[in-house]
Each structure stands twice: as structure tokens, then as C-alpha cells.
């Protein structure tokens, strides 16, 4: 055991049992899995991803590259967690990972929440700086959110032994925490990691709420919560990550970051070894030597690359009789299957712990995500924040300010300034507490210990990338650190190279003979730490992922075995198969019913826009390509609309339902876009028009009754409504009672048959449908779905906008010049005269009859003219719709073909994988060309 007898912030009265790789261990409340493993003498925690080398715990925080674990069994199993961040609980089960986790095969039943919050000042990071900032801003009266990634606030100084006002820093910490809790507008989020910083000070915070409780987690509580915070001001107090120096055989278990070792000793009461050597280029690691000495370890030497380290820290260490090897480096290590056994620093020194510090990299990840720019500070030997376009301040170690006293002062100032900027307080911070400081001997930048022996020197531990790999990348011509990253995979592990990135830039710089400042960093992108997909999904899973829209008649369709098709968000019956029927058989049967008897379809999904006002007619005339001046009340008319570029946008039927009042239908998928489009013209170009638009898509249910016997069904349903061809002509509207329900009946047809569309208030929809089916029963009424509807309309050559068109098709291309007015202006009219729009060889909508009547061309098939051509073969068009027709007794298709109207009766070929499929070009109408059936 390497647990100290006393000290640390663990609760020795609460032992916790856990297993790691099936071996039982015991830790204490307050431990992380990493500290508990070290306390149990577990030195090897993983094997490296490429070379299978033994690895140990390297850090004490989010930057950990080695100690990846899978936690929990069964459905709660979480892959790829860092042992340094897993809080211990009783019964925890963890396994080491070989760089890749395993998702549980079972669905994750835990709940994940999202929460939107607004505040005046968001402080990210609850170390000394962040606490001071939150306190200053909160005391000024601002609404503050403080997000801290750990279980308790305090950050790095929980792992130190600083004194504030002559007392342990943790006393000050407790006081600040009490002060913050007393401020009603301050909210402290623990276990909450800010993972993304977006535009307009939008910060995403991932909060872990129950994982640390293990099986004791309340089932009703969200496992994690995603906070989407909008802050008027942000203070980033995200601290800094210690970086190692790179030397031969630098990946053995027992080689750790010096600051991390301090944290294990002081916060967790764990000494991760028995005999420790320090290797540093700066003063911070001397505190580590003192802590280890006080903890009773042998500390034979501090190896310092600086030629003459002097002043407060080195002197204190020398006073203890610890040798300082000035101007020396650790150039090699030796060890076995328990890790480190000795280091070489001009001499062999036996040790099982090597504490390395190469300086500190401010954690500028969020700052860069906020579009901030960095500059390289030569004195501090690190990249520090420079310009920031957003309302963000960076304070403390994240800003390159490393002393505790300076951090607190900078935090207080940043908090007060942020509050003042949004109207709270005068911006002057309260006085900072007294903190003992020691004059520092400056850092000497040092990245890589030269090695001539060809020994392995790791740059990125998680990715197993070595200096030789970097050298190979530069040798292959890579000069940008971004290219080196992609060539070597440095920084692409789940730790995103937090301990590797800057070192790799420095090594690239050394190889290219350029300073680190010129090389720069790679771009840090969200998320700052790995986040589970379940958190981003939140509750929008399963049925809540996307709203499903259903019509009032939907339950009937379900009860009658409909197969559904998604149309936008709508669920529409695709076809209604009988027992044992294939789709093809069902669709042919449904088509026959429409052509020969009577059939009914739920068309409630069509978009419907109510258009009212004294300028409604003027408005329609401008929106649609055709004119409505002659459309009398009680009649309806097919309408087509184009965008300003003259291309077809949507179509539907406009009903004149009363004085200055119209109802326009749109395609089922286009309703929202058409309404926005109409509103745009009304509000931006024609604001003087007295017109109001209302979406009434959901207010009406509509049943289409189609077929030669549809009139008989209508008569049965509405005996009082004259339904003969003279009293109720094609494109007329009648209002009256249908099946005892107030209804509006339109005689319109998308199938080409005699047909009536019955509209009722949506809550009567199901009752109407049932009445139609009952009244139609003597006539053999058949429900039909969208597929039959598509076949029937294609037989008539009616284009479906969005299927037979793609945004590059004009009404003229569709052969629909008849619906384009020559007399009035409308949106897109001018474009129809543009040279490109008017040229004769545009793609025209035509019909295709495959030469073999059973040949069903796939939709999307390309078309060519000559069967035998040398490549490149010119494509002249493609199939847009293709079906088997009951009425024709054969297959047919619609297609867009270049100059198609001039190719009537000629042949085109669809080159499909098996062979060329010939087809004859025809008019795009196959059934009842004269319209006698429809109009009868």
C-alpha cells in the first residue's frame, strides 16, 4: 500500500470496494479510480494502442492519455472514461482498455436532459481564479453561473499546500464556497465540463449527475445534463495543463507529471512510488520534491535542465539535502513489467517514480473555440490568449498567470470587470487575500532530450506516436503542424493531445529550424472532452426524435393494415395490402378500383393556406403563373408557382370560397415553405396589400372519392347535393351536409377519373371516412394509398413537384405553358425570357414506353440516344417516375429528356448494369387524353 497514514481530502472512515480487471481493491470516499489504483499499488493500467507497451497513470485530470477504462457492466457500461476523472463508489467495476471502448449492446435506458440558461457572467473553471471571479461578479450583483468540472471546487490548489492569509488554502476555499452559496444569483455547477464555446457567447456544458453514485443513483434523475448557456460575459478560468519533456523510454509506468504527483500526495494521501527523481525545466516541480520528501519518500535528485537554478525553490530543496543536478537531463530509463526502475541522468539513479515537468500550457481550448487568437510568450514558454472577438476574458493560469496570489487577483479583477460591463458594480475588485510567494527562477524552454541511440521517444502517449514518426512526417515534406497531426495522428486520440500537442509543434519547429511561435498550434475544436451521443440526443430519442404528423383518419389506416410512407413529417398510407398480396399486386388492384369502380383516399395532408383580404386576388395573380380574375366564387382552379428564377416551386388548387377569400392547397411536403414564401413577398415587396395568410392544414380533413362510381357514393352520402355533371361541373365547389357533417366538396381530380374531394373540420375526419367507406360498400369502394395515386396521376402525365422536377425545371419544360399567363406579371415571368430559360433544347417532361412491356425502368436511370457509342457517352436525360399500369397493361415512365418534345416516337436507352433498355419517347399522357372520363 502506498496510502499515507493521514492527510488528503479523502474520508478514511468510508472505505469503498471496487474491482479493476477483476481484482478486488479498496479505496476511500473522495478517491478517483486513479488515486485508488495508485493507493493499491497498481502501476500498470493499460497497454499502448500500437506497440502494446505497458502504461501507467500519467496525470491526475482531464489530460490523461493512458488510464482509459471501461466502467460498469451491462447496460450502464461506459466506455473510454479516464480513471483520473472517475469518482470511486462502492461496488465499482472497471476494466483497462486497449485504446478502444465497447458500447453496451443494450439500449441505454438512462435519462439525459437539456437545460437552457441565461446569465450575466459565466465563469468556467472553479479553481482559485474562477472562484475569485465568481465571487467578485456575484457580490457586484450579477447573475453568475460557475461551471467546474470536478466533484468539488478548488481546482489545482486542492493538490497543493499553499497558505492564504496564513492558513491552509482550503480554509479560504471553504469560506468562498459559503459566500457563493449565500448569493442568490450565483449558481455553482459541479461535475460540469464546458465542452463547446460557440457564437454569441453560447457555451455548452456537460454535467455528470449520477455516475459517481453507481448503483445508488436515483432512477428518476437524469444521468447527465447538457446546459446551453447564453452569457453576456464569459470569464475563462480554465487553468493550465502541465506538459512533459520528451526523452528516451519516457512512457514507463511510474513516469508521471510532477503536478499530478503533488495532487495524489496532497489531495488523496497517496504516494505513487517509493523513490522519486524529479526532472524539470522550471521551479514548479521543486514543490513536488518537497511534498514527496515530507511524505517520507527517498528523493535522490532533482534533474534540472537549467544550468544554474537558484533562488527560493532550489534553495529550499537543497536545504533538505536533495541533490540538484543542474544542467542535466534524463536521457534514458530502464524498467521491467512493474514499470520504472532507474533513470540515466549522467549517472544511473535507481527510482520507481519520475516526476516530469516541462512547463505549463494554458488551457486555451475554449478560448480558441470562441475565435480567440493566441500569441507565444517567450518568457513563459507557452501560448497565451491574445485577441478575443467575443465578450470573453481569460484569467489565471489559462492566461499564463501562474502564481496563486496573482491568479486570485486576476480572477477578482476579471469578475468585477465582467459584472461592471453588464451594469453591476463599478468594476473595482475587492482586495485580494495575502498569499506567501517565492521569487521564481525563470523557466528554460526545453522540449526534447537529444538521442543518438535510436531509442523510442514518445510524443503522444495515447496515440503511440514517437519523435521518429514526427521526423518521418517532416521528411515527407510536412511543414504545417496540422499536416503533421494528420500524418502522424498526434493529437487525434480521445485526449486530443492535451499533453502532446505543443511538444509536437516544438519538435516540428526544431526539425525545420523554426521557433515554436512560428509553428503555432493546431485548431482546438469542440468538444473539449469526449461527450456521449446520448447527452446530445437528450430526450429526443425514439418517437420524440422527429414529430410524426398523422391525420385524423390515421387510426383507421392502422387498423386496416396500411403500409405507411413518410412524406415530410407526415405518415401517409402507401398502399393497403390484402392478405398475401405483394406491393405490386396491391397497387395494381387499387389503381383498377379507381379506374373501374370507386376508391377513397385520405388527402388531409395537403397543405392549406387561407388567403383573405381585399387584395387577395391581386396577390394570387402575382404569386401564381396563371390568372384568377375569372375564377368565380364556388369554383377552383389549378395553380402553379415559380421562384423568381422562373423554375417551378410548388403547385396546388386555389378555391374561391367567398368574397375576398380563397383557400390554396400546397404539396404535402411544401406547405411551410410556401407559406413563408408568400409571407416574404407580402411583407417585403407588397406591404401595401391588404391580405392575411393563415395556415389551416391541420384544421381540415379531406377525403378524395374517385372513380366512375364516385358520384353514386356522393349521392348516397349527400342526398340533398345535386351531383350531376351539369349541376356540379368539374372544378366546382359545393357546400352542404355530407353524412350529416358540414362539408365543402370540390370536384377536382388528380387521378384523371371522375372524383370529389370532401373537406370537413378535422375532428369529423374519421367519421367522414367511415361514412364514405360505409356508403361506398355496395359499390366495392377500395381505400388506396400514395403509390396508386402516383401511378394514376402519372398515367395522366401530371408532374409531381419535387419528383418530376428538381428546381431547374420551368412550366414550359413540363409542357405546361397553358398554365402560364401571357397577360399579367407574376413571380418568375421575366426569367422565362432569359436566353438559357428560353432555349429549345432544355430538358422536357416526356413519356417513355419501354420497348418490352414488362420492362420497369428504375427511377433515376440515365438515358442515352445511341446504343453503340464511344465514351464519353452523352446523357440526354433521366427517368423521373416509373410504374406498372393496370389501365395500360404494361409499364410506362415519365422522364426529363433534352429537347424531348422534338424526339417523339424516337428511341432512347437506359444503360443499366445488365444491358441497355430501349424505350420509346411519347407524349407524357397515357390515359384519357381528351379528359372525357374526368369531365363526365
Amino acid at each position: 500500500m502506498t496510502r499515507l497514514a493521514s492527510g488528503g481530502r479523502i474520508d478514511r472512515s468510508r472505505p469503498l470496494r471496487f474491482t479493476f480487471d477483476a481484482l478486488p481493491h479498496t479505496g476511500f470516499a473522495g478517491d478517483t479510480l486513479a488515486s485508488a489504483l495508485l493507493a493499491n499499488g497498481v502501476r500498470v493500467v493499460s497497454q499502448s494502442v500500437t506497440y502494446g507497451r505497458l502504461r501507467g497513470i500519467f496525470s491526475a485530470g482531464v489530460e490523461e492519455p493512458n488510464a482509459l477504462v471501461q466502467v460498469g457492466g451491462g447496460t450502464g457500461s461506459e466506455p473510454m472514461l479516464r480513471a483520473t476523472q472517475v469518482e470511486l463508489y462502492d461496488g465499482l467495476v472497471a476494466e483497462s482498455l486497449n485504446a478502444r471502448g465497447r458500447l453496451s449492446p443494450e439500449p441505454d435506458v438512462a435519462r439525459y436532459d437539456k437545460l437552457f440558461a441565461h446569465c450575466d457572467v459565466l465563469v468556467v473553471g472553479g479553481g482559485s481564479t474562477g472562484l475569485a471571479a465568481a465571487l467578485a461578479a456575484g457580490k457586484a450583483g450579477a447573475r453568475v453561473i460557475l461551471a467546474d468540472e470536478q466533484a468539488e471546487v478548488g481546482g489545482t490548489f486542492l493538490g497543493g499546500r499553499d497558505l492564504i492569509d496564513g492558513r491552509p488554502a482550503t480554509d479560504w476555499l471553504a469560506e468562498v464556497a459559503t459566500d457563493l452559496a449565500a448569493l442568490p444569483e450565483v449558481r455553482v455547477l459541479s461535475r460540469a465540463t464546458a465542452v463547446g464555446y460557440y457564437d454569441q457567447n453560447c457555451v455548452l456544458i456537460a454535467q455528470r449527475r449520477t455516475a459517481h453514485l453507481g448503483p445508488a443513483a436515483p432512477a428518476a434523475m437524469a444521468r447527465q445534463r447538457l446546459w446551453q448557456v447564453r452569457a453576456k460575459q464569459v470569464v475563462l478560468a480554465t487553468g493550465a495543463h502541465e506538459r512533459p519533456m520528451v526523452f528516451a523510454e519516457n512512457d514507463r509506468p511510474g513516469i508521471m507529471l510532477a503536478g499530478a504527483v503533488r495532487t495524489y500526495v496532497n489531495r488523496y494521501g497517496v504516494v505513487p512510488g517509493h523513490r522519486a527523481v524529479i526532472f524539470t525545466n522550471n521551479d514548479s516541480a521543486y514543490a513536488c520534491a518537497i511534498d514527496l520528501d515530507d511524505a517520507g519518500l527517498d528523493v535522490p535528485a532533482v534533474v534540472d535542465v537549467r544550468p544554474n537554478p537558484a533562488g527560493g525553490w532550489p534553495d529550499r530543496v537543497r536545504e533538505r539535502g536533495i541533490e540538484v543536478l543542474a544542467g542535466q537531463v534524463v536521457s534514458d530509463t530502464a524498467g521491467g513489467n512493474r514499470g520504472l526502475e532507474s533513470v540515466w541522468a549522467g549517472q544511473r539513479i535507481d527510482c520507481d517514480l519520475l516526476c516530469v515537468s516541462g512547463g505549463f500550457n494554458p488551457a486555451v481550448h475554449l478560448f480558441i473555440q470562441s475565435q480567440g487568437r493566441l500569441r507565444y510568450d517567450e518568457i513563459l514558454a507557452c501560448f497565451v490568449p491574445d485577441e478575443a472577438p467575443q465578450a470573453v476574458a481569460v484569467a489565471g493560469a489559462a492566461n499564463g498567470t501562474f502564481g496563486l496570489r496573482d491568479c486570485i487577483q486576476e480572477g477578482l479583477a476579471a469578475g468585477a470587470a465582467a459584472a461592471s460591463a453588464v451594469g453591476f458594480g463599478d468594476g473595482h475588485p475587492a482586495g485580494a487575500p495575502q498569499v506567501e510567494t517565492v521569487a521564481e527562477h525563470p523557466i528554460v524552454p526545453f522540449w526534447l532530450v537529444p538521442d543518438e541511440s535510436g531509442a523510442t521517444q514518445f510524443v503522444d502517449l495515447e496515440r503511440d506516436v514517437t519523435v521518429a514518426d514526427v521526423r518521418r512526417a517532416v521528411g515527407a515534406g510536412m511543414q504545417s503542424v496540422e499536416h503533421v497531426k494528420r500524418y502522424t495522428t498526434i493529437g487525434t486520440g480521445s485526449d486530443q493531445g492535451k499533453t502532446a500537442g505543443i511538444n509536437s509543434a516544438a519538435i516540428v519547429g526544431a526539425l525545420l529550424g523554426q521557433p515554436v511561435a512560428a509553428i503555432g498550434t493546431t485548431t482546438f475544436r469542440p468538444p473539449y472532452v469526449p461527450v456521449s451521443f446520448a447527452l446530445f440526443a437528450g430526450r429526443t430519442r425514439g418517437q420524440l426524435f422527429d414529430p410524426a404528423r398523422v391525420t385524423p383518419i390515421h387510426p383507421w389506416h392502422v387498423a386496416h393494415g396500411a403500409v405507411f410512407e413518410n412524406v415530410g413529417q407526415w405518415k401517409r398510407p402507401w398502399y393497403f395490402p390484402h392478405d398475401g398480396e405483394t406491393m405490386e399486386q396491391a397497387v395494381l388492384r387499387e389503381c383498377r378500383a379507381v379506374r373501374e369502380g370507386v376508391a377513397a383516399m385520405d388527402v388531409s395532408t395537403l397543405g392549406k393556406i387561407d388567403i383573405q383580404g381585399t387584395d387577395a386576388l391581386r396577390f394570387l395573380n402575382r404569386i401564381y403563373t396563371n390568372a384568377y380574375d375569372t375564377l368565380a366564387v364556388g369554383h377552383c382552379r389549378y395553380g402553379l408557382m415559380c421562384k423568381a428564377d422562373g423554375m417551378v416551386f410548388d403547385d396546388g388548387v386555389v378555391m374561391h370560397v367567398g368574397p375576398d377569400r380563397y383557400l390554396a392547397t400546397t404539396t404535402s411536403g411544401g406547405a411551410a415553405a410556401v407559406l413563408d414564401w408568400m409571407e416574404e413577398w407580402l411583407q417585403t415587396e407588397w406591404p401595401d396589400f391588404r391580405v392575411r395568410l393563415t395556415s389551416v392544414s391541420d384544421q381540415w380533413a379531406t377525403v378524395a372519392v374517385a372513380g366512375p362510381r364516385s358520384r353514386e357514393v356522393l349521392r348516397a352520402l349527400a342526398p340533398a347535393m345535386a351531383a350531376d355533371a351539369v349541376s356540379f361541373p368539374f372544378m366546382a365547389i359545393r357546400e352542404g351536409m355530407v353524412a350529416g357533417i358540414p362539408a365543402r366538396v370540390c370536384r377536382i381530380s388528380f387521378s384523371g377519373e371522375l372524383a370529389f374531394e370532401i373537406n370537413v373540420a378535422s375532428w369529423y375526419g374519421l367519421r367522414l371516412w367511415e361514412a364514405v367507406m360505409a356508403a361506398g360498400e355496395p359499390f366495392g369502394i377500395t381505400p388506396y394509398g400514395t403509390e396508386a395515386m402516383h401511378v394514376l396521376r402519372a398515367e395522366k402525365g401530371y408532374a409531381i413537384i419535387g419528383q418530376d422536377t428538381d428546381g431547374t425545371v420551368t412550366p414550359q419544360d413540363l409542357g405546361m405553358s397553358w398554365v402560364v399567363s401571357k397577360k399579367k406579371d407574376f413571380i418568375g415571368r421575366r426569367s422565362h425570357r432569359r436566353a438559357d430559360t428560353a432555349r429549345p433544347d432544355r430538358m422536357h417532361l416526356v413519356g417513355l414506353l419501354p420497348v418490352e412491356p414488362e420492362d420497369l425502368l428504375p427511377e433515376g436511370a440515365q438515358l442515352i440516344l445511341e446504343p453503340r457509342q464511344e465514351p464519353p457517352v452523352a446523357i440526354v436525360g433521366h427517368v423521373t417516375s416509373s410504374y406498372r399500369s393496370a389501365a395500360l397493361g404494361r409499364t410506362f415512365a415519365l422522364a426529363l429528356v433534352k429537347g424531348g418534345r422534338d424526339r417523339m416516337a424516337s428511341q432512347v436507352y437506359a444503360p443499366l448494369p445488365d444491358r441497355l433498355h430501349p424505350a420509346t419517347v411519347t407524349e407524357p399522357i397515357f390515359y384519357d387524353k381528351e379528359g372525357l372520363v374526368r369531365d363526365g
Partner: protein
Amino acid sequence: MLLIPCPWCGQRDEIEFRYGGAAHVEYPADPETVDDATWARYLFVRPNPKGPLAERWCHSQGCRRWFNIVRDTVTHQIMRSYRMEEAP
């Protein structure tokens, strides 16, 4: 994700809005009298500045009003939000 100030409803999340492209693109008073080049400019040519851009948005999941904002295309800061009838 932007927070967009609707002149009628105040600050709302971007998901409530539909984007409408550059604002103040003059619709030719009489399209029939302009030449092809002028019409093509109206149809296809849009400003693409690095910096402030006036653009149209529609609060389609809210008050359904079209309005203009001035947004910096580099920082996404919204400098101004104004109603259709207000001067640019």
C-alpha cells in the same frame, strides 16, 4: 447557434427562424423592361462581405414576420435588427 433579436418578439433561438439571404436586393420596378444582365444581377448576384451584412430572416416559428438584421459574417455578432419598413 445564434440568438436572433426579432423586432417583435425579442431574443429567440435560431431554430425558430428561416434565413432569407441578403436584404435590400432591389426588385426591379418593372421586370419586363430591364435587360437580361440587369435581371440576372437581381436573380443571382449577392453581396458576400467579410464583415457586416444586412440580411433577411423570418420568425417562422414565432410571429411569422420577415425582418432585417445586420450580422458580422466573421464574428456572428448582430449589430442591428429592424423591421421591414425601417430604413437600412
